[in-house]
């Protein structure tokens, strides 16, 4: 049939994964098996799992780095590491945790969950999704190959110039960091684009903007934030690389450049980024907590608004990382006030969670414990952030262990705890098996106690005057005992994390079978089988409320009924429903691309491009540019199967 159809009235069917129609879907969506299938897969579930696994690997690596550093700091005048080693360790620890763990792990959740939460069959750009993962992986490897050679980045994750400039740091260390970050920026950007367009186009019919789960709001906000923040850091690192390799003078004060320009660009990115790595995690809690409290989240709209408002504020307060740089006094007072305002959206979220627990009937599962633990850590991390927002106090606290404590409460408390809770929550969906509850509770208590024992004393160390990023300290300052406690506590925390990983491995094989909806949760992903079939939904569901699986139990009128078993079938190839961006009315039948190698090839070529730039190997650079051009042209070539042409 040469005619490509341009219009169609889609078939509406009543079907489930057991229906014969799902066989057709399965054959449409399933990729090739074996290595080939693995390398070319563009399935969002596959990519999401890879993101999760890779991010956890980086978490382990970053944790090992921390463990070595804590051994060095456990006692005064310790000589386990040389200063250079220590400096590379703390830099790589920061880089790993912030860039290679914290955001990618959330991308993993979001990649896996978004289409399931939204009632779609894939992300808007499946191949871009694969590209985003491969580039992330290669950027991570790129940053890490320097490590065994002893040439790893060594100026801290915020990499202030002029110490990062060639005059003071002649080795390749900083070049690796600069190029690696630009490469990673590509991954983050295409990932963000994918999320944004997915939200705009791929929601199930009826899932209007006021019905999307909070996790979606969190990731969406983070993605929009990344879209506007990442260019700042990519540009800053590019300029730095130019300064180092080609003799430009962006940051060189002797030729009219400005060292503070680095700090402005870095924190214009850095502050929103902090929200990018916590907002989706907060979304995980806002979606998971209500399930275990047996009631909907209190204050959906305020929480969604708080999510967006936090990010918007985040773009205006970068200067509060620079209070001690000699900025105008008038300016700082304002910034102080502006930064403190973030308390308001944060308290909206906190009171929403507390109210949800208070007015619900909590069920104490492991996931729930992690979510509740998170709430209290969120509060501690929040109030310590509030203290550092007060300019005069910050002039004492900044660059000390108080800040180290604060940022660990933020990143571990607000990212790691929800993430682990989220794994407990969605593990049955991803694998079809439940995780071990007893072991889960053990790991929670070990992690929670270890974390607080390990990191709370850091506040006190900071007030006792211990600056951050020092590899040793003299005995007479009296920081020894607390540092020992910190070291022991953090090791305890690490044991808790190991227990969690153990649980994952054991449950993968031996966990109890989960069934479709083991927690009796309310959102769409629980309406399909566990693990979900490759096509996600046998029919595209229709949504009539915020809690489609709890309808009938909440006080609603009768016509408010979502439909999970009956909906658009869309089985002529890889198809899903495109809906209007605001009201989610059916708009277009989207043709999704087949599995492809082009993302992998493109990502490889990009990695080679950056290696060429690092080694000053211009022919390598040129060759990879050609490959990039070819790969992207083949990628974008209009395909008849995607129905983008009509001949």
């Amino acid at each position: 049939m040469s005619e490509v159809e341009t219009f169609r009235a889609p078939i509406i069917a009543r079907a489930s994964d057991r229906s014969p129609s799902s066989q057709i879907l399965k054959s449409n969506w399933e990729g090739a098996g074996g290595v080939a299938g693995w390398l070319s897969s563009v399935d969002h579930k596959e990519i999401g799992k890879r993101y999760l696994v890779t991010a956890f690997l980086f978490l382990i690596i970053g944790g090992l780095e921390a463990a070595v550093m804590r051994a060095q700091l456990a006692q005064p005048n310790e000589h386990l590491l040389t200063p250079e080693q220590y400096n590379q360790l703390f830099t790589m620890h920061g880089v790993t945790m912030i860039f290679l763990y914290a955001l990618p792990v959330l991308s993993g959740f979001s990649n896996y969950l978004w289409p399931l939460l939204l009632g779609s069959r894939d992300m808007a750009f499946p191949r871009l999704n694969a590209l985003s993962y491969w580039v992330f992986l290669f950027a991570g490897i790129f940053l890490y190959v320097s490590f065994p050679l002893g040439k790893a980045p060594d100026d801290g994750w915020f990499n202030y110039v002029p110490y990062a400039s060639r005059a003071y740091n002649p080795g390749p260390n900083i070049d690796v960091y600069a190029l690696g970050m630009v490469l990673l920026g590509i991954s983050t950007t295409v990932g963000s684009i994918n999320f944004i367009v997915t939200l705009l186009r791929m929601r199930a019919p009826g899932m209007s903007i006021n019905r999307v789960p909070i996790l979606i709001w969190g990731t969406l906000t983070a993605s929009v934030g990344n879209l506007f923040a990442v260019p700042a850091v990519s540009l800053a690192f590019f300029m730095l690389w130019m300064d180092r390799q080609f003799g430009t003078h962006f940051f060189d004060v002797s030729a009219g450049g400005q060292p503070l320009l680095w700090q402005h660009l870095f924190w214009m990115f850095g502050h929103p980024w902090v929200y990018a790595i916590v907002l989706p995690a907060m979304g995980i809690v806002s979606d998971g907590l209500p399930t275990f409290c047996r009631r909907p989240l209190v204050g959906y709209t305020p929480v969604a608004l708080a999510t967006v408002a936090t990010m918007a504020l985040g773009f205006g307060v970068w200067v509060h990382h620079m209070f001690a740089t000699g900025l105008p006094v008038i300016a700082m007072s304002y910034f102080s006030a502006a930064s403190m305002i973030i308390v308001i959206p944060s308290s909206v979220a906190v009171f929403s969670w507390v109210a949800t627990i208070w007015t619900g009937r909590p069920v104490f599962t492991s996931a729930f414990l992690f979510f509740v633990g998170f709430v209290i850590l969120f509060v501690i991390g929040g109030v310590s952030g509030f203290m550092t927002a007060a300019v005069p106090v910050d002039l004492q606290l900044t660059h000390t262990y108080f800040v180290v404590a604060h940022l660990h409460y933020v990143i571990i408390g607000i990212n790691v705890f929800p993430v682990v809770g989220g794994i407990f929550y969605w593990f049955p969906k991803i694998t079809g098996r439940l995780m071990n509850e007893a072991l889960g509770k053990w790991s929670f208590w070990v992690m929670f106690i270890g974390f607080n024992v390990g990191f709370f004393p850091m506040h006190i160390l900071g007030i006792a005057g211990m600056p951050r990023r020092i590899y040793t300290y003299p005995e007479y300052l009296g920081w020894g005992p607390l540092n020992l406690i910190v070291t022991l506590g953090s090791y305890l925390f690490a044991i808790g994390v190991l227990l969690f990983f153990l649980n994952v491995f054991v449950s993968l094989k031996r966990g109890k079978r989960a069934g479709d909806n083991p927690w009796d949760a309310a959102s769409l992903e629980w309406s399909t089988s566990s693990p979900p079939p490759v096509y996600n939904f046998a029919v595209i569901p229709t949504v009539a409320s915020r809690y489609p699986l709890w309808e009938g139990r909440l006080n609603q009128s009768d016509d408010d009924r979502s439909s999970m078993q009956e909906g658009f079938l869309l089985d002529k190839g890889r198809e899903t429903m495109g809906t209007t961006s605001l009201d989610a009315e059916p708009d277009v039948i989207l043709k999704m691309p087949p599995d492809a190698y082009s993302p992998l090839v493109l990502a490889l070529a990009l990695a080679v491009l950056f290696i060429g730039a690092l080694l000053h190997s211009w022919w390598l650079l040129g060759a990879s540019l050609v490959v990039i051009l070819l790969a992207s042209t083949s990628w974008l070539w209009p395909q008849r199967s995607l129905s983008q042409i009509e001949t």
Partner: protein
Amino acid sequence: MPLTVSSISLPAAAREIAKPALDGLAVPGSGRLAELPWNWEVWVLVCLGLAVFGYAYGLRRLNPHARSRIFGILRIASFAAGIAALFVALISPLDALDDQLFSAHMVQHLLLMMVAAPLLVCSRPAMAFLWAFPMSTRRVIGRIWIAGGLHRSVTALMSPLAVWLLCSVVLWFWHLPGPYGWALANEGIHTLEHFCFFISALMFWSLVIEPFGRRRLDYGSTLIFVATLGVQNGLLGALLTLAGHPFYGAHFNTTEAWGLTPLEDQQLAGIIMWIPASVIHLTSLGVLFVMWMRHAEREARVAVPSRTRLSSSLAVQRYTTVLAILVTFGLSGCDRHGPASYWAMSGAHADRGPALMQKYGCAACHTIAGVPNARGQVGPPLAQFGRRAFIAGILSNNPDNLVKWLRSPQSVIPGNAMPDTGLTEQDARDIAAYLYGDT
């Protein structure tokens, strides 16, 4: 705690460069607020007075019912507050101070753009002013408005992209040291500067606030619109705050009387531009967001029946697979996407539309093509209905919503001017089909 290096006085070289700009103005003030003059400039007073008079007179002409419905006490209050802000900005000693202090100038601009403009837009002045004229004049204005192409050019000028570009250009242009200096040196250019700021702000807020309840931009786009302009504003404020030396020669000699160095004055101005303005932008973003959620809520509630009907249609149309596929191809061969085609299938009779609309009295309020004597001016004309994005400004334009609206407008927007006319379902469908037919 720091004293900053920036408070060290400005380099002699900068003064030297600024010399030419200093000629003829920049007389250092006394540094005492009380000695600043009020600016009783006649034409400003006349304009303000005319505005107040026009607004009040227009309100008086309206019957009390319409007045309370269209304007309401809040809108009148916001008009008063807006005029008060204009008064403070243009007539109080602030206006004299702005020649001396950049920061005072910034406060003045903030009042014009971020306080007066939104308040005035809220108060629907255009409507009131129009009513200040007698009926015949209103007709003439209306005719010129439509026939003279004014309507179309204003619509084009008010397109979000145009407003966005205009606001950006105005913002950056007038803060360059050159144009800023000209404005301070020449009263005419100064007036032009304020005019640019004020008009662009009015356009900006008209798009954001939508004084007539009809959104030109959906909420998502409005959020982006406000955010991107807000970010530009913030970046410029940041640059002014963080700059290493003062830019504006006109203020080099005048700030010391007020206990500020020119650089401190500029930092203060930058901060005023950055933070309070951003707070206003952020607040409007928050309000828009909540409105968006409410809108989506309302929209979804209205739209639900259409979906349930979609699935209950299965009861009517149960086919075997083969039949379904046949039907599919049959449809895809001949049909096009669009409300009209949607409707054509469901057995409504568009040809009954005109008669029904006569019968139910639609023509009394609406101008409807093809309906005799339907030249009503109370409600909007109903031409090309299928091309509209919204029904009544809140429902997305689809047949189910249109039927819902026609049958029971009061349940959709309680208190609006369109009465429940008692249409039957079938009649409403027929009318809807007719309206969609006119494209």
